[in-house]
């Protein structure tokens, strides 16, 4: 899906759109956001005046009109290339966002009025707080929370995942997205966002540039580049009196050419494209970031809080064995296990029922009609049933059951249970205790399967300096076993929401940046506290509000991708900056000798590239300077490949490639261009 989407990105549509936009973007008001390119624009403006003046007056000191014209044209081209890069990145982002948004623009909504009747309105007229009804087969008109009902929904338009998902009122999965299709049942939904203010709308605004704020690092880099621009402005301006002292005359065109070549136009021209491309990549990974800063911060994360289930282990734990306590036989235990899990729709509950059925218990027990179900709660950490005869059956973690039963009698009466619990846990399984009327009757063994390849992935993160923390409701023994198997650095066992929050706060106090993913309402405080909080799209509105990113795929491993996208963003900027500045060495050696060889013939020795003539040397440098921008657009948009190695190795490698490369490439490039250009002079 993503590959297919990316493939379309360099299509001719985008290029046409970007070409038009790159001319519109020449507006000085827009250019002023970028000091480097703005100064190129001013230089171009001066050159237009100089070219016209050199045409109509015979003033030799202004330089030859043809030469002036060429320089003016090349500078204009430099500007257009830079604008084109930005426009192309924007076009890509817009297309990705539009694909996500397309479906909902024309949808009709069945809005419930205060009178209780419903009227048909356009989706765009829905306000926050409005209620609407969706029937089977219809498109959901807007983002919202299910107030009433349970339904299966096809979210493939947004996530690309074809399997339908279940959404239900009053659960942690009560949220629906505009543009998705209801496959069954009917639901009453409350609108959660103003029109034009949904996450997707925010993201589109971020890519489109209108709302784009510079991220902190982008701001600092812009300052650095502006500083370089001033230094080289000074170099160029001071050169005129220097030359006057030496009796040389310098045409304005050559000075402006020197200035434009020395200032970091390569990174200046690509800077905003890189930023937008980072957002594009996030969007391409089906992540909606609420700000560019969030994507950038993701690259700085030190600690990842990962839910065990779905991230580290495949799907869910399965019940694999029953351990009835002395005095209970397997079939009786299976009966109890089955009835306790009848209404338990968690995957674990279903697997218990499955195992019980294999042992001959159906769960539909004629002796115990109409059981009252007790749902799982985070506080008791148990679920179960209350039977009409007053019998209470509970299942849950060993210590939760221990709290429920009388602890002192527990050990004395059931020494074997304690052993089983420990054995199961030591093997990485999860023991689930079953108790009837405050008396334990046996243990259910649940087992986890660790995802293949996850260990290697964590090794990579360790090399990047990231600490991975597994969050699980398991007891510490089980957690330790799985943690060791999967190769995470730390774990939070028997985790309650406040434990997560506490862990995040502790790490932050030590100066670490923490990222986590969550879906439930009770995750909201931790999501808000974390530096990067990613909410699952299926999660509650509260979780989504608290997070700074939303993952449309509900994929817990997405956290890892987000970190890489953030790092890639910074690395791309850093490396192109280095490349751009390193280019100056060659440009100096091309232009400075060319400026003075006539008045100071000895300086010909500095022309180590042996360029054709002073004019062709300067033109070649300017052409190189312009061409390098479009040549680097693919790199800027797709990002420098991130390798998960330590910072020192990465620095050495990138210095070699972009630093040394940045010195060497323009020497070769300018020489090659000169070989062509000198044919025409």
């Amino acid at each position, binding site marked *: 899906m993503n590959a297919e989407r990316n493939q379309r990105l360099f299509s001719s549509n985008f290029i046409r759109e970007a070409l038009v936009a790159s001319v519109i973007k020449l507006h000085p008001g827009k250019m002023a956001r970028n000091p480097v390119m703005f100064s190129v624009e001013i230089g171009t403006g001066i050159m237009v005046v100089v070219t016209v003046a050199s045409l109509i007056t015979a003033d030799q000191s202004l330089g030859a009109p043809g030469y002036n014209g060429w320089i003016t044209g090349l500078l204009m081209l430099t500007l257009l290339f830079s604008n084109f890069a930005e426009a192309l990145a924007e076009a890509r982002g817009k297309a990705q966002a539009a694909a996500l948004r397309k479906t909902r623009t024309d949808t009709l909504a069945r809005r419930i009025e205060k009178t209780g009747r419903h009227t048909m309105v356009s989706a765009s007229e829905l306000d926050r707080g409005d209620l609407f009804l969706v029937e089977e087969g219809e498109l959901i008109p807007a983002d919202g929370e299910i107030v009433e009902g349970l339904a299966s929904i096809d979210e493939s338009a947004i996530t690309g995942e074809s399997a339908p998902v279940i959404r239900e009122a009053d659960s942690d999965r009560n949220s629906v997205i505009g543009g998705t299709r209801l496959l069954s049942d009917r639901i009453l939904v409350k609108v959660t966002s103003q029109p034009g203010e949904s996450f997707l709308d925010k993201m589109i605004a971020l890519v489109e540039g209108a709302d784009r704020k510079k991220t902190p*690092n982008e701001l600092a*880099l812009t300052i650095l580049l502006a500083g370089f621009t*001033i230094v080289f402005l000074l170099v160029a301006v*001071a050169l005129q*009196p220097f030359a006057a002292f030496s009796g040389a005359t310098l045409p304005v065109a050559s000075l402006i050419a020197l200035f434009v070549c020395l200032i970091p136009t390569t990174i200046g021209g690509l800077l905003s494209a890189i930023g937008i491309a980072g957002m594009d990549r996030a969007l391409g990974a089906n992540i909606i970031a609420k700000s560019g800063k969030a994507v950038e911060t993701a690259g700085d994360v030190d600690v990842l809080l990962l839910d065990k289930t779905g991230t580290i282990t495949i799907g869910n734990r399965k019940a694999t064995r029953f351990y009835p306590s002395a005095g209970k036989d397997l079939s009786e235990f299976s009966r109890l296990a089955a009835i306790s899990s009848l209404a338990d729709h968690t995957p674990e509950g279903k697997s218990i029922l499955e195992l019980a059925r294999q042992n001959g218990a159906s769960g539909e027990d004629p002796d115990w009609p109409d059981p009252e179900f007790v749902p799982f709660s985070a506080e008791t950490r148990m679920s179960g049933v209350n039977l009409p005869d007053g019998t209470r059956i509970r299942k849950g973690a060993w210590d939760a059951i221990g709290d429920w039963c009388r602890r002192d009698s527990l050990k004395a009466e059931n020494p074997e249970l304690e052993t089983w619990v420990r054995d199961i846990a030591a093997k990485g399984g999860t023991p689930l205790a079953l108790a009837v009327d405050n008396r334990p009757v046996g243990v259910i063994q649940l087992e986890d399967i660790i995802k293949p390849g996850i260990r290697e992935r964590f090794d990579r993160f360790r090399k990047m*300096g990231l600490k991975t923390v597994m969050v699980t409701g398991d007891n510490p023994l089980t957690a330790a076993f799985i943690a060791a198997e999967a190769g995470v650095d730390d774990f939070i066992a028997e985790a309650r929401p406040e434990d997560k929050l506490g862990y995040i706060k502790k790490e932050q106090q030590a100066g670490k940046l923490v990222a986590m993913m969550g879906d439930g309402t009770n995750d909201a405080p931790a999501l808000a506290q974390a530096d990067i909080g990613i909410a699952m799209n299926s999660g509650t509105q509260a979780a989504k509000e608290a997070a700074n990113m939303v993952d449309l795929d509900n994929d817990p491993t997405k956290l890892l991708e987000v970190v890489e996208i953030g790092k890639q963003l910074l690395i791309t900027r*850093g490396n192109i900056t280095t490349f751009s500045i390193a280019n100056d060495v060659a440009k100096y050696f091309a232009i400075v000798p060319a400026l003075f060889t006539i008045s100071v013939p*000895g300086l010909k020795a500095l022309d180590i590239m042996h360029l054709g003539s002073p004019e062709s040397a300067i033109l070649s440098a300017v052409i190189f300077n312009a061409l390098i921008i479009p040549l680097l657009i693919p790199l800027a948009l797709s990002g420098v490949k991130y390798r998960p190695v330590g910072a020192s190795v990465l*620095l050495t490698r990138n210095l070699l490639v*972009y630093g040394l490369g940045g010195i060497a490439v323009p020497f070769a490039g300018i020489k090659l261009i000169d070989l062509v250009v000198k044919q025409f002079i």
Partner: protein
Amino acid sequence: MNTEILGVILMYAAVLVLAIPLGRYIGKIFNYENTWLDKTFNPLDKLFFKLSGIDPAKEMNWKQHLVALLTTNAFWFVISLFVLTNMSWLPLNPDGNPSMSWDLAFNTSVSFVSNTNLQHYSGETGLSYAGQLILMLWQFISAATGIAICAVIFNAMKAGTTEKLGNFYSYFVRTCTRILLPIAFIGAVVLVFNGTPMTFEGKDTITTLEGVEQNISRGPAAAFVPIKQLGTNGGGFYGPNSTNPMENPNYLTNILETVFIFIIPIALVFALGYVLKRRKLALMIYGVMTAGFLCLVVPSIYYEMNGNPAITEMGIAQDMGSMEGKEVRFGSAASAYWAINTTCTSNGSVNAMHDSMTPLTGMFAMLGMMINSFYGGVGVGFINFYVFIILAVFIGGLMVGRTPEFLGKKVEAKEVKIAMIIALLHPLMILGGTALASFLYAGNPEAYAGWLNNPGYHGFGEFLYEFCSASANNGSGFEGLGDNTPFWNVATGLVMLLGRYLPIIGPVAIAGMLASKKYIPESAGTLKTDTSTFGVLVFAVIAIVAALAFFPALTLGPLAEYFSLY
């Protein structure tokens, strides 16, 4: 091996051997650890603080440090102005030298307060001994100012989050009493035994071999010269500075004086390693500085030892190398070595005439001042280097995909802005000043004919050198320049003041702001700043920011001269 080169290697080795323990000692002083001089100086320190009513235990934030620095400097500046303009009637004037005019006194005071020591007078005739002593006092004050503020930055670089960065006055007094005074005293004793005058009596009269009577200026020169070298001051007791045999009698004293140029700037780098407990970081900094220094000094010695091709063409053998403007008792290698020493640090004392050196040596001397942080002036050399580290950290941090951090503190827009302004300042003043001078001269060569004895490339080089020297607070000159005119006095005066205080204020602000930020412990993803790779990056930043900006100017000066000569 050639004994001249051996002498140079010996001088560098001596510096290194002495700087390592001295760095440790300075680190102890900054850390308030016990040293063997405490017994002598603790009571003295206490007396100073009691008399001045300053509480040396009161911790200051970075702004308070800067206020303390500027007020101390301003206070002594006024006193210096008073003494210089009233020397004629003040005591200690056996030769009856006149008072300075207000403008010359102003220029001289600015020059000494800024650790520049550009001298538009000759000590023998322009100063009384009271004047010499007040300038000698300045040589202590400006050196101690730089070292004390450097200690503040070291303090700010420590782990943890704090606004409190020690007490400026305390660092200042400890620097004077425990570092500068003892070493200067040793140097003075050596000089006295080698014949440098140390007296408050007036001129001596001798009869030369030709039978002519000659007046020989004397004075407290032996006390003056060591601090001149040690504090990277460079202002000579006599007009000709250390070329004068009274100030630098023989090869032995030349070794001593050369060693004194480098010893504190290098020791401070090691002191950083001791204070922060980061020896590797200190080694990285030392490595980059040394690599840069070698790039400048090796070719300089080579060109000076190989003579001047114009003289070779005249058929004159130059076995001793290019000896124009050099002292026979030092030779070409030791003179070239001193020239690069004195320009890499902001010292500015000379033992040969830089104006007469071969073109590339002149260029390397200028590069030393343009970069001004290959060891650099006492305290301020490291402070300049700190700015380059911040810039390198920023670029390097991005290159490894993390918001840049230096020693656990995030480097953000504000710090980058200040670092960039400071990095800009030096090219602005040098290129701007030279451009102004060139513009004036090119517009009306007759009116400004007095400025230059050598028009052409070398004349341009003289302009460039003068502004380099003022902006880098160096104080040496291409002495062919007629610089005692209103234009040069005013222009260089302003440049000296800006070039001194802004590059102190900026980095102290950066360090202070970083110190108050949250401390982030290192991880494998953090850019390590104590590696050779990072050193390469810093070197590249220096080469591109500090050196390349001057490439066109150097092309029209020394490079053009070189290519037309060779």
